[in-house]
């Protein structure tokens, strides 16, 4: 059981910044995220796009903002459970909460802060009969351990960065890599497109375009996929490929998911909170901050998430330490004391006489 002071669900900018604000109050945090990397929407949807409305940054790439946040919170040593979705929450007799993930990892904390954004990102699945039957029996939507594909015949589908990147990576791992895409053009970074072209020229990757997977099948495990390719003159050919794995990479879409069943008040796909106070939900001890919450006047902006995280931490502190007094201290005055023993503070003024 992982134990912490504030358990944060969601490693987007809001969840990450909450670690910093909690750290200033000497509260420890642990973060759960369904994605394998931190950053939420910034990292998953638009890492290379500039953001212009982060105070103090006239322009910053979303990916760089996440890197900066990770650096900023490093002294507070948050724990991470990545690649796992928080599925259930149970309140214990002592008032603490136990949150369990889809992989069975258990976390316990007196305060839970849901910073789940638009929800956990789930793969967009192609519209194929039988797809569900072969999930985890050859059909996978995310590559977690590339070694799984060593010496196997892998079929990938999609035309974006993930499809290209994994094609390049698996070309050196799998026995056979085939990439199927509906068009001849790809939407990924130019150098990834060029690398795939090179691998194709070397015969290390089979590229089938413009084509689509129309069916999959097999006995107990996935064994084959049917491909439909259109020729230059509109002629259609359909053929079967023998494969061990099919990895459709058509992007991810966020779904509020299991959080919707936690007994929280939900309105318009978001969690209702007590507006101006501290972003607490209808269940005391559970807070909702950032894009995932709703209240009159709500704006889904990163800076609003930062503000909400700050107020949430103050309230969490009072809940965890009801008998302790706390006075807001500026970081310029109090500095920051990391849990790793590090200390940051403004240099003392030099007082020297001039004679």
């Amino acid at each position: 059981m992982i134990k912490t002071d504030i358990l944060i669900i969601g490693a987007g900018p809001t969840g990450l910044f909450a670690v910093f604000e909690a750290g200033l109050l000497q509260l420890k945090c642990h973060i759960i995220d369904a994605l394998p990397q931190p950053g939420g929407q910034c990292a998953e949807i638009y890492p290379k796009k500039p953001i212009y409305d982060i105070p103090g940054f006239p322009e910053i790439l979303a990916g760089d903002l996440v890197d900066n946040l990770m650096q900023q919170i490093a002294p507070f040593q948050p724990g991470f459970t990545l690649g796992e979705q928080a599925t259930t929450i149970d309140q214990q007799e002592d008032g603490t909460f136990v949150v369990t993930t889809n992989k069975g990892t258990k976390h316990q904390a007196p305060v839970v802060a849901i910073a789940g954004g638009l929800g956990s990102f789930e793969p967009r699945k192609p519209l194929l009969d039988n797809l569900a039957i072969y999930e985890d029996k050859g059909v996978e939507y995310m590559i977690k351990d590339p070694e799984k594909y060593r010496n196997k015949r892998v079929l990938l589908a999609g035309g974006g960065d993930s499809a290209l990147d994994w094609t390049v990576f698996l070309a050196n791992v799998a026995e056979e890599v085939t990439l199927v895409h509906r068009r001849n053009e790809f939407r990924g970074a130019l150098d990834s497109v060029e690398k795939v072209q090179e691998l194709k020229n070397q015969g290390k990757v089979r590229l089938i375009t413009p084509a689509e997977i129309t069916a999959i099948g097999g006995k107990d495990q996935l064994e084959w996929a049917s491909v439909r390719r259109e020729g230059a003159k509109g002629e259609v050919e359909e053929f079967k490929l023998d494969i061990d794995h099919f990895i459709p990479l058509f992007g991810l879409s966020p779904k509020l998911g299991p959080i919707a069943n936690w007994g929280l008040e939900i309105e318009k796909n978001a969690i209702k909170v007590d507006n101006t106070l501290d972003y607490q939900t209808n269940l005391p001890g559970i807070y909702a901050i950032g894009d995932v919450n709703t209240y009159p006047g709500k704006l889904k902006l990163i800076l609003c998430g930062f503000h909400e995280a700050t107020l949430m931490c103050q309230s969490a502190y009072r809940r965890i330490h009801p008998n302790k007094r706390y006075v807001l201290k500026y970081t310029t005055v109090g500095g920051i004391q990391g849990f790793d023993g590090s200390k940051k503070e403004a240099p003392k003024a030099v007082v020297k006489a001039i004679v």
Partner: protein
Amino acid sequence: MSDIQVTITDRAGKTHKVSAPTDMNMNLMELLRSYELAPEGTIGICGGMAMCASCQVYIISSHEMEAKSDEEEAMLSEAFYVKDNSRLSCQIPLEDSLDELVVELAPES
């Protein structure tokens, strides 16, 4: 003109006739969101960058539309439920020439 009329069939099959401003630099996806014609989180996920296809619509009327950009073409080639008349509504600026436009929201995917 500053307002045009747009007819939209939502994902439940219900038809709405709405007024759309053409002087606010708005696109069709933003119009759909402002009238809350699809639940929050199911439309406009990428904020209108032609990166998610959650805003896919079918153009029913015979309006002359701007040609698709490479990004729109590429995203539609990866989306589901795509038809010949599919467009990404975030790539369609609301302009006077679109008065009486009729569209249908594609299913959520």
